[in-house]
């Protein structure tokens, strides 16, 4: 749901993994004869390498760049969550609907529905559009069909309340709360 660039994440993981394997094999080649024999035909590893004094500053600078890029990527991950569910602009004025309203509507509509343990709602900015994620915890041994019907009704009420259809993701989940809740009984 967040803005994180998943393709880029995969590429970073892949490159880091590749680098780790290559460095590991290089070090391993110096110690384990089997590894050395295995990779000798393809690459000829130098048995010693001079580190000239002039390259020390270049290495240091490269390291600094790597550190900065890595930390920037780590600290800017996530994001995209918002507390505004709807924003309607007309000229100078803007009307915003807070996520708390959506939360209240959904919770109110789902209260007392069999097999629903709880619900959580959060909104995200996805491609400049605001989308709501409704997570409904279903009781252990519960019936997802009736829960989904109830959620449908709740979303219909939400649509009427907001006066528009916002994109929603409905996620029926188990989770700790439903694991702790009493299971249903057959009467």
């Amino acid at each position, binding site marked *: *749901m*967040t803005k*994180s660039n*998943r393709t880029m*994440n*995969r*590429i*970073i*993981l*892949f490159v*880091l*993994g*590749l680098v*780790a*394997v290559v460095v*590991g*094999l*290089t*070090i*391993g080649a*110096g*110690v384990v004869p089997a590894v050395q024999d295995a990779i000798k035909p393809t690459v000829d590893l*130098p*048995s*010693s*390498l*001079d*580190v000239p*004094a002039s390259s*020390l*500053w270049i*290495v240091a600078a490269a*390291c*600094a760049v*790597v*550190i900065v890029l*890595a*930390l920037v*990527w*780590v600290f800017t*991950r*996530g994001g995209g969550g918002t507390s505004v569910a709807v924003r309607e602009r007309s000229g100078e004025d803007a009307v915003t609907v807070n996520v708390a309203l959506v939360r209240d509507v959904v919770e109110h509509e789902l209260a007392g529905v069999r097999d629903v343990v709880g619900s959580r709602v959060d909104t*995200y900015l*996805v491609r400049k*559009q605001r989308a709501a*994620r409704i997570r409904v915890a279903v009781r252990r*041994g519960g*019936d*997802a069909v009736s829960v*989904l019907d109830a959620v449908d009704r709740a979303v219909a009420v939400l649509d009427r309340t907001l006066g528009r259809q916002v*994109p*929603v*993701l*409905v*996620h*029926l*989940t*188990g989770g700790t709360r439903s694991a702790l809740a009493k*299971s*249903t009984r057959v009467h």
Partner: protein
Amino acid sequence: MSNGSVERRIRRRSVHRSRSTAVAVALVVLALVAAWIGTESVLRAIGRPPLLADPQTAVDAALQPDAAFVTIAEVIAVVLVVLGIVLIVLALKPGRQHRSVVQHDRGAVVIDTRIVASTAANAAGTAAGVPEGNASATARGRRTDVRIVPVTGIPVDEQAVQAAVRDRLSGLDERFGRNIRVRVDEKGTLA
């Protein structure tokens, strides 16, 4: 309004796991290693004693370790290779979570596999007339296996149970109802 594309996107992103955490951990480790290498280089360049080993010693030890460093070099090499393979696997695997996408008119809907199984068990238990604890189900992909422990003296109609489960799951998505297996245990329990 292009609700459809946004909903498809958030549904897809919900079914597949994010690698954010793995990437963050890997990058922090990378930053630490880079910090160490950078510090050693600077210390060497300004002629101060190194923290652990100056770059030349480190490179020598990595490529052609003397007796004292063989074990350390081995351990580091193995750890790096294993770690690298783990990262590559993480990068290439689809990373699906245990959730199923359900076709739905309004909104995007995903359901935990566990909830699908619990729905099947619920329907099976009701159809077979056994207590809740006697019906269990596992769902995997589109396939659902139902297992029923009958109550002694009351026969269970497998066909009826299968039909009931199919009906119930079709209420979620008709694809769930296609592959259902019902197994009734031979030994029953007392009511």
